[in-house]
């Protein structure tokens, strides 16, 4: 509806809204890149800092936003939406948030465009910066890396909230009234982060406690593809060059007036540049491809605990096991997390490829999947592993499993074990390929220490021979033949591997065994009065000692 807005104000307002939309997208995507953002303040205004805020322009993101807008502006019924989703290395994805820039019909005719609206849009952008750090997706995005990545998608039109699961929450970032309508910025975010892949659980009943959030296809096939929240410098990988900031963005030089409103001065100069038409070759990019320059991939690996095991954060339950990851330099290479226990190995393709329904070599039962999860440096590690061993599948089921464990590059397995030849992993020839039961894994179930003599005594008599023979009496303990590199010692007859084997199972400390512990506690309690009496006698000495400390 046309108001009595003069044409200059109208033009300015349209420009403000357009650049506000672009900056909003930049702020959101940059907040999901996975690392801390830092921009410098500058006391001298520069031409490209719209709204007096230093928000960098990633050319690819600007390009995508402009493509989605297609020359239009947010209006009633036409919202600009940025969808943030998570995609695992196995191709499963989940929408995390939808940020909406909407316009409604409520107009504020009295407001000054070039002054108040501009400043309020600036304030709204600051609020957006603050809010993007407090939604749950922020912490997820900071930990993205090998197991999953965060993707963004920009679309224009009606807001689609179906993918957020039940009970999603909304937060309003803010509103700015303008003479043509009220700009509203809000975010709807998923709170039910329990996530189940249909492939993972199709053959087994669900483990208790997992919240099933059916993975359904998008009701609205997305017209715009998703993109990783990764920053590449222009022209690296696919030969696509995006116009840089200076080329495509209008320069904003604003000056404000302290004079009465009728004399407001506002100038926007347009820098004319040749903008080459970008050639977009493949819009659905495999997130890990060509990321040699990406600095967003974090090296940390996040693996999740199944909700059933009751470990991990009570608030966010992630029952998916993120198995394989990709290295940055070899997108087709798979890096198996070197955790205790086995992990299923995905086939020799980028695990995050677009073809999510590829045939996979590895299938695994939930129990195996369960014990794969091990939170780094968490005291719950051993708990999880021991919990899962109780719920493990029967040997029969496990025989159907192709199960690979990475125990180190220098470990040889006996020849009579199955080898998987079609894997392209580093040091593949060294990787053990076996069908061991999970409870045969010495890492999971360390064998009980021998009850007789101390292992030290035993080891001095053993010949430290390597080979398939077991060093103790337990049948399910498989001796791993260590041949550690650089560990030969000329002085002693044993090498590092032998040393490790022999001292691997020390006897339990007597004070830690329960009955002995209980006894000693009783003895301690009995002897307390005597000890107290002795201490009281020596109280002067103690006091003197304390004096020396002060």
């Amino acid at each position, binding site marked *: 509806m046309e108001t009595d807005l003069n044409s200059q104000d109208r033009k300015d307002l349209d420009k403000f809204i357009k650049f506000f939309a672009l900056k909003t997208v930049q702020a959101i995507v940059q907040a999901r890149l996975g690392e801390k953002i830092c*921009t*410098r*303040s500058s006391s001298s205004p520069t031409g490209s800092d719209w709204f007096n*805020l230093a928000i960098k322009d990633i050319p690819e993101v600007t390009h995508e936003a402009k493509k989605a807008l297609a020359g239009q502006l947010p209006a009633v019924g036409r919202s600009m939406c940025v969808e943030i989703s998570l995609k695992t290395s196995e191709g499963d994805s989940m929408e995390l948030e939808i940020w909406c820039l909407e316009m409604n019909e409520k107009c504020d005719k009295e407001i000054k465009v070039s002054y108040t609206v501009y400043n309020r849009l600036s*304030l709204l952008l*600051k609020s957006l910066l603050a809010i993007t750090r407090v939604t749950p997706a922020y912490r997820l995005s900071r930990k993205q890396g090998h197991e999953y990545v965060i993707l963004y998608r920009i679309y224009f039109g009606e807001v689609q909230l179906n993918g957020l699961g039940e009970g999603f929450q909304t937060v309003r970032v803010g509103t700015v009234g303008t003479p043509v309508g009220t700009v509203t910025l809000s975010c709807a975010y998923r709170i039910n982060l329990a996530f189940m892949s249909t492939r993972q659980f199709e053959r087994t009943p669900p483990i208790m406690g997992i919240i099933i959030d059916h993975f359904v296809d998008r009701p609205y096939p997305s017209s715009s593809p998703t993109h990783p929240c990764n920053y590449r410098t222009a022209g690296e990988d696919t030969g696509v060059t995006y116009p840089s900031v200076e080329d495509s963005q209008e320069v904003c030089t604003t000056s404000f007036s*302290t004079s009465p409103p009728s*004399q407001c001065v506002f100038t926007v100069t347009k820098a004319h540049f040749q903008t080459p038409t970008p050639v977009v070759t493949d819009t659905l990019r495999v997130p890990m491809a060509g990321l040699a320059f990406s600095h967003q991939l974090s090296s940390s690996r996040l693996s999740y605990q199944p909700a059933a095991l009751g470990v991990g954060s009570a608030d966010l339950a992630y029952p998916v096991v993120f198995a394989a990851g990709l290295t940055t330099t070899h997108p087709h290479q798979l890096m198996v997390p070197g955790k205790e226990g086995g992990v299923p190995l995905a086939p020799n393709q980028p695990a995050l490829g677009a073809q999510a329904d590829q045939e996979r070599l590895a299938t695994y039962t939930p129990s195996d999947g369960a014990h794969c999860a091990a939170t780094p440096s968490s005291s719950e590690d051993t708990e999880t592993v021991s919990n899962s061993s109780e719920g493990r599948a029967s040997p029969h089921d496990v025989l159907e499993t192709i199960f690979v464990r990475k125990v180190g590059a220098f470990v040889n397995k006996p020849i009579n074990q199955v080898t998987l030849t079609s894997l392209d992993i580093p040091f593949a020839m060294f990787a053990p390929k076996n069908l061991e039961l999970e409870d045969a894994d010495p890492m999971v179930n360390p064998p009980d220490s021998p009850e007789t003599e101390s292992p030290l005594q035993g080891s001095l008599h053993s010949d430290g021979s390597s080979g398939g023979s077991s060093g103790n009496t337990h049948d399910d303990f498989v001796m791993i033949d260590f041949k550690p590199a650089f560990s030969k010692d000329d002085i002693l007859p044993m090498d590092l591997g032998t040393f490790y084997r022999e001292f691997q199972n020390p006897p339990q400390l007597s004070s830690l065994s329960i009955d002995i512990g209980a006894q000693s506690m009783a003895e301690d309690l009995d002897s307390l009065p005597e000890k107290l009496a002795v201490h009281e006698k020596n109280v002067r000495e103690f006091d003197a000692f304390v004096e020396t400390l002060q």
Partner: protein
Amino acid sequence: MNCRSEVLEVSVEGRQVEEAMLAVLHTVLLHRSTGKFHYKKEGTYSIGTVGTQDVDCDFIDFTYVRVSSEELDRALRKVVGEFKDALRSSGGDGLGQMSLEFYQKKKSRWPFSDECIPWEVWTVKVHVVALATEQERQICREKVGEKLCEKIISIVEVMNRHEYLPKMPTQSEVDNVFDTGLRDVQPYLYKISFQITDALGTSVTTTMRRLIKDTLAL
């Protein structure tokens, strides 16, 4: 004109006090700072650019955004450090509060000193809890992080009500509205004070700290 007053309450562990306070104060100041004004002829002015940076907390699962200004950060850290020390040394219940007050100066004739008229006051009440086990501390990290997220959302909500803000001043008046002493940003004139309180909210040890970049104090 009435002074707008907002109160926030947080319960934190001792070592989280500083970061929680800084998160809240920086978030408020992010919204209440502009770029440096550069006045030109004919009463026009241009505004510098405000940069931002993310700050990860060490003792809380939380990240906040602050203005990229080392001077401002130092000033806040100083007063928050004093507050933390006062809390610690007070013994008591571990209750205290900090106030961030935005004000305007109104010139008065000599010999009267300038009047400071507050237009917005943010009060953050802190309750320090003592935790016994590492597991409790870990849970506290997460819970306090979530609580701070809620506080940030509350702050943003207030900010976006677009209620009273001082009029943009002329060059001669700018020091009555803004703190122009910083090199790279220009927050509204503010002062921070704190009190250690007992359970009833009365001031047991009143410790006032004034943090004013005031060039005209008599």
